[in-house]
């Protein structure tokens, strides 16, 4: 049995959980190979465009910021690649501001940066994005609260039960110790799985720093051991 690496719903240090965390225990359905949750979610509203993975080329000009490549594999818990699955990503700009009306952080918006992208994994489960490094940003969770720089990821997999939404962080961020969202992952070893690794082989000369981050989804049933 895999240990459960996920945060608890109720994490009082993250104030928004207090009225939103379920208070009753979850009910586990008996295993049913026909359960609708096991179907492959067909996410087909629009084909992924050839530039959707490049957040630096969505506007007239280039965004301000440190250009980065973020790449890695989507895998299941048995180490098998998950090919042809949708990966969506969103993030703040280099100043720590989201292009979202709800974000009132008084840092400049960048007219050349929306901060949303998507791609499909290739046959070996690889995804790759080109973007800029997001800035840290303040939030109102507690006095002097700051989120470490992060990129939000949404991944599908091959069964709806594999659905994962998470955040990727950058190595060595001094804000980790103060961030209740990062710290909500109970085991420090599991927290490390949210941190990408600087990778000189992904880094492109005179162009962009490279980071590598693999995403591991739960295994699907119907698979022989």
């Amino acid at each position: 049995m895999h240990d459960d690496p996920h945060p608890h719903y109720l994490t009082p240090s993250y104030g928004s959980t207090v009225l939103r965390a379920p208070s009753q225990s979850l009910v586990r359905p008996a295993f049913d190979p026909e359960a609708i949750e096991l179907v492959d979610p067909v996410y087909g509203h629009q084909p992924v465009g050839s530039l959707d993975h490049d957040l630096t080329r969505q506007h007239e000009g280039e965004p301000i910021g440190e250009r980065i490549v973020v790449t890695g594999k989507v895998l299941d818990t048995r180490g098998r690649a998950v090919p042809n699955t949708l990966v969506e990503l969103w993030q703040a700009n280099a100043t720590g501001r989201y292009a979202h009306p709800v974000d009132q952080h008084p840092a400049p918006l960048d007219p050349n940066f929306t901060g949303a992208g998507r791609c499909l994994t290739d046959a070996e489960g690889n995804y790759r994005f080109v973007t800029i490094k997001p800035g840290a940003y303040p939030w109102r969770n507690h006095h002097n609260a700051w989120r470490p720089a992060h990129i939000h990821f949404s991944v599908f997999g091959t069964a709806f039960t594999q659905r994962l939404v998470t955040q990727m962080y950058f190595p060595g961020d001094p804000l980790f110790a103060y961030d209740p969202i990062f710290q909500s992952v109970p085991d420090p070893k599991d927290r490390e799985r949210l941190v990408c690794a600087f990778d000189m082989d992904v880094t492109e000369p005179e162009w962009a720093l490279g980071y590598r981050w693999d995403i591991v989804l739960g295994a699907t049933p119907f698979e022989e051991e």
Partner: protein
Amino acid sequence: MLTPSQTVGPFYGHALPYAEGPFVVPEDHPDAIELHGRVTDGAGEPVPDALLEICQPGLFGRCATEADGSYRFRTARPDVYIPVLVFARGLLKPVWTRAYLTDEAPFLAQVDPLRRSTLVASPSGERSYRFDIRMQGEGETVFLDHAGYADPAS
């Protein structure tokens, strides 16, 4: 080994919702139904920044809640139930539930009779069903545990 979940946060709006997301089947689909409702928190207040996803064989829908916590899908009538997945700020991992269009199904028999009705959508007009989601407290929706479920051999 698994990558831990983190909250979707409040700022997914320019990335995840898309215009056709709530309209899973065309209006003239012979089995089209409307599935709608409100998401409320433990104080009974609307959850205005939730993102709901539904999945049926060959179909997928996504709908963000409005300021009053409401959502509305047009989808195909399911054989038995529609899986519903809810993401939101304050949810460090999503909650899973099911909107049943019948009150007779094997899984429902497994659920505390006092809470069973939270899984059953109520008719609210012609080919329209209301399915409210209460995150916490009185009338709390039954949420499902899929941990390990997808991988019984592990």
